[in-house]
């Protein structure tokens, strides 16, 4: 159960990395930092400004979308086609954002108000926090929304076209620069959404972006870079693996299972289950 919930969450947080990797051929090492920014924004809007938590969440995502546009325009655009430059830039960016968060929000865990504090009773003595269920199901909901957006809308079609072949896309009149700009904004907003949804359950500190970025990498390598279905499969698998691992082996090492999984995939099926590779 916990594995499935975590799986949905991992899938959502990897979706943004996957989108950016697919469309822009850029591995975003600062994804996790946008996640904590989302959490901090929703905390501030709901606690300090007293907004309704759901409204605060939407405002926070909007803000992150704008931040994403700004960062693409100023930092990422000049690095297209140079994977090393973009990795270095996003890595530095992650350190900068972490330290900004540390200075402006302090080192202590911050937690926006929960949507619900109750837990549900399943069969027997099995209790499960409603907030976790909400986190899991809203992750799944947002993920499906994103999936439909990419697969069913005209804009999603353009995004997929640019991902497949930027030059062909340009040739049929798609403004690929603009598509990349919006994709990056969207990815950052998705990271923020994950932060908004998760922070009531898992309070954030300035360094909690790192594990999220790493699990997103495991998921996209497993699912194949740029594949959205792969994200969901990879997320669920990672969630279950970590859950079983910590139940039967050790709780301290839940991240280590992700790493073992990563090495395993690279050894045996480097293109991921849906066969994409950068």
């Amino acid at each position, binding site marked *: 159960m916990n594995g499935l919930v975590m799986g949905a969450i991992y899938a959502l947080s990897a979706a943004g990395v996957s989108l950016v990797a697919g469309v822009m051929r850029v*591995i975003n*090492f600062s994804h996790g930092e946008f996640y904590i920014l989302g959490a901090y924004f929703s905390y501030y809007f709901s606690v300090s400004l007293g907004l309704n938590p759901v409204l605060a969440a939407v405002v926070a995502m909007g803000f992150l979308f704008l931040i994403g546009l700004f960062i693409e325009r*100023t*930092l990422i655009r*000049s690095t297209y086609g140079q*994977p*090393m*430059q973009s*990795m*270095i*830039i996003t*890595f*530095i*960016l992650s*350190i*900068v954002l972490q*330290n*900004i968060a540390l*200075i402006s929000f302090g080192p202590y865990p911050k937690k926006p108000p929960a949507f619900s504090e109750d837990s549900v009773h399943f069969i027997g003595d099995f209790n499960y926090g409603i907030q976790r269920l909400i986190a899991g199901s809203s992750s799944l909901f947002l993920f499906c929304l994103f999936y439909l957006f990419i697969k069913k809308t005209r804009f999603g079609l353009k995004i997929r076209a640019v991902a497949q072949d930027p030059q062909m896309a340009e040739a049929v009149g798609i403004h690929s620069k603009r598509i990349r700009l919006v994709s990056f904004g969207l990815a950052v907003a998705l990271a923020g959404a994950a932060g908004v949804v998760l922070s009531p359950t898992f309070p954030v500190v300035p360094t909690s972006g*790192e*594990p999220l*970025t*790493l699990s997103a*990498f*495991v998921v996209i*390598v497993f699912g194949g870079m740029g594949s959205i279905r792969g994200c969901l499969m990879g997320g669920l698998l990672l969630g279950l693996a970590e859950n079983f691992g910590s139940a039967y082996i050790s709780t*301290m*090492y839940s*991240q*280590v299972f*992700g*790493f073992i999984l*990563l*090495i395993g995939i*690279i*050894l045996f099926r*480097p293109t991921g289950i849906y066969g994409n*590779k*950068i």
Partner: protein
Amino acid sequence: MATKSKRSIKWLIGISIALAALLLPKFASDYGIHIAIISLFYVLMSSSWNLVAGFTGQVSFAHAAFAAIGAYASSLMAIHYNLPIPLTIVFGTCIAGTLGHVLGRLCLPLGGTYLSLVTLSFAEILRIVITNEDQWTRGTMGLQVPGIFRDYSKTKYYLLFLAITVFAVLGLNLLIRSRMGLRFRAVMDDEIAAASVGVHTTNIRVLAFTLSSLIAGLAGALYGHYAMLISPDIGSLAQMFLILAMTMIGGLGSIEGPIFGAILLEVLSEQIRSFGEYHLLVFGVISLLIVRFAPQGLAGLLRRQRWKLF
């Protein structure tokens, strides 16, 4: 044209730097020597990171982690088996090199992107393992490490670090100017072209990565026996970032850049430290600006003025 006078100026500068470096312990305070030693550690680290990033075009995020491996492997050997320190340093260096070789063999056939992803998670996992296995490593409390010299003297440590750093940097310089260095750059500039003239691109990349992990392990082991107290922080991503920032600010892909960047940033961070823990943020912003507007770093800016040191 002006080559002769230029060369003699170069020699003059080189000799005066060497003299200054050798005479430093005579004039500097203990604190000054300490900063110099730490700077030399960073010179080793960023020069060897630069070998991979600047000359073969791949980003390793586990460079600080390899230093941690070197430090912990050497210290644990010295503590538990009472072996002579020079031997344990060699051991730590070899462990780091071996792990680097394995990681490189695993990831590099798939391309540099995979190396970056895997090294980043490797670094995090290593930090978690060191923190959690506290019956061995004493976790975040820090492990007390025996020193190299029986009677503690900063000057001795300084001269040791200086000798090893000069040796390593000269070695790297020779390597890069050799035919092997040509292959490194060929692999970075155009992989397909390099492969078509018979360069085994994966082997070349693995070689560079192994060598650089080896030097990182050596630097880490030396650092551990100098500081006499090591914690998982030596392998942290913040440390990794410092090494990266030193190389980027100094100048990626040049010999003098990382040396200059390492000394500059170490001295600066000691100055900034008195205002609080802002040095990471400041260096982050500076290195973003450098990467964005002057990707060749300060060395590149100087070179544009036709002022090449080496």
